[in-house]
């Protein structure tokens, strides 16, 4: 044995020591400083335990007495989700073509991408508030909101799929002298339709979840029922609604999973 080595330290994750310490100190300083300066009313927070007790004792047992209200709210959510999915999926096809770099000329490409980015940036609840202000309370605002929400996801995924398509087929069609529309139908649609169906089913599931939420700000559906129950301190009814929402979400997740598996 030539040299006796008896020290070893793990090579640090950030090799540069100055940067490493800067990162450590930065993280500590951030959490310390921000943590101290958060606008928190500790007195009010400390009352929380007692209130939690009151809310939970008010919530148990959950009350299914007004089940008609519950069913109506839920059916409205389902309608909102169905219509928004249909509208969103249809609209997302042209937008996806606009936002696919291999299909659209530059200015249109940027426009398509901008639509997608804007649709994705805003949480559906924010979109819902704006639509409620524009078109009034009720399920129509909910449908519009979820159409935007669907475009943000479906158009993005579809645009990515279009960018990946096999251009050999398109060229073969063009070489055979096919007009633009036939090229679209025979060479491009078959490549994107299976993906689009999968995305639609996924989006229906997503929209059903989201429709429960947009109702909280007045866009119809079960969320509106829940917001009302909460506002009137009907915690037992609110719990019943929540249980139904959770149950429906689990069910729809399972169904959508099964369908997507069968399609692929």
């Amino acid at each position, binding site marked *: 044995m030539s040299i006796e080595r008896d020290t070893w330290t793990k090579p640090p994750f950030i090799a540069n020591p100055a940067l490493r310490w800067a990162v450590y100190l930065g993280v500590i300083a*951030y*959490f310390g400083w*921000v*943590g101290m300066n*958060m*606008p*928190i*009313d500790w007195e*009010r*927070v400390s*009352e*929380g335990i007692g*209130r*939690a007790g009151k*809310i939970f004792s008010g919530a148990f047992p959950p009350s299914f007495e007004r089940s008609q209200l519950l069913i109506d709210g839920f059916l*409205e959510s*389902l*309608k*909102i989700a*169905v*219509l928004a999915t*249909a509208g969103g999926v249809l609209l997302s096809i042209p937008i996806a073509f606009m936002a696919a770099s291999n299909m659209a000329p530059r200015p249109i490409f940027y426009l398509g991408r901008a639509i997608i*980015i*804007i649709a*994705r*940036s*805003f*949480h559906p*609840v*924010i979109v819902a*508030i*704006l*639509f409620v*202000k*524009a*078109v*009034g309370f*009720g*399920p*129509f605002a909910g*449908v*519009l909101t979820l159409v935007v929400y669907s475009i943000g996801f479906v158009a993005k995924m579809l645009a990515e799929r279009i960018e990946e398509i096999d251009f050999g087929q398109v060229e073969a069609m063009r070489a055979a002298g096919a007009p633009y529309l036939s090229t679209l139908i025979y060479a491009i649609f078959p490549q994107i339709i299976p993906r689009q169906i999968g995305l639609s089913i996924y989006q229906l599931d997503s929209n059903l*979840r989201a429709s*429960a*939420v947009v109702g*909280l*700000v007045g866009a*119809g559906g079960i969320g509106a029922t*829940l*917001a009302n129950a*909460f506002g009137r301190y009907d915690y037992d009814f609110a719990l019943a609604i*929540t249980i139904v*929402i*959770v149950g429906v*979400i*689990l069910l729809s997740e399972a169904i959508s999973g099964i369908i997507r598996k069968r399609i692929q």
Partner: protein
Amino acid sequence: MTSLSEQFGRDEWARFTLKQRMMRYAILLGCGLVIAWALTSIEVIWPWVWGAPEQIGDLFGRMYPPDPSNLASILAVLWDTVNIATFATAFAVLLSLPVAYISAQNTTPNRATLWLGRLILVTSRSVNTIIWALLFVAIFGPGVVAGIIAIMFRSIGFIGKLLGEAIEEIDKRPVEALEATGASRFKVILYAIVPQVMPTFWAVAILRWDINLRESTVLGLVGAGGIGIVLQGAIDTFNWPEVATILLAIIALVIIGEVISAFLRRRIL
């Protein structure tokens, strides 16, 4: 020697068999019926719908030009929003570790803990952040505490589920090797399991932070802190130019968040 077409009894070609085609038409018809049902029974005042494009155009018209006079205070609450998302993600990450541990089949101590873990995951994941926020605003009063806890509750399920799946998918052979050295359970976890799930852990934490940034922009609408409060205020006072500024600020926040998380993902993974 029979020809192929004789063997299979086919001399014509169609893309789908008759049964498949009927199936397709049936599914299409079903979808159409569901949409028709939804369209005809939904409680919508149709004249409003026809007027909607005009109304929406009018709304956006009133937003222009955006009014930046309150930009300083908007940026201040935007910073609060970032802090809510970051703190909530940090707490959720820590709390989701034990949840992931008990909800992974290969590490959970027994069946009772496995079901407890799964119950926590399902509850957390199925209730939306806003609904959690509604509950915690009722408990802790309006403010950032309710917001942080709401986002945390929703994130635990998300992180815990993905992390639990990562634990279930690890290579079991190093675990066996370290058990054979006589290492305690905890040390086996530390040396054989933790290093294997580390990449997933960071990826999931970053992804969730990105999602939480978006979620925290709406907390204020139910009173749970962040930029949503200012947005609600501006909407309630019909101050549309300021609403426009706030919306632009949110877009900027979301895009910056995406850039940062893409950067972290590249550096860490």
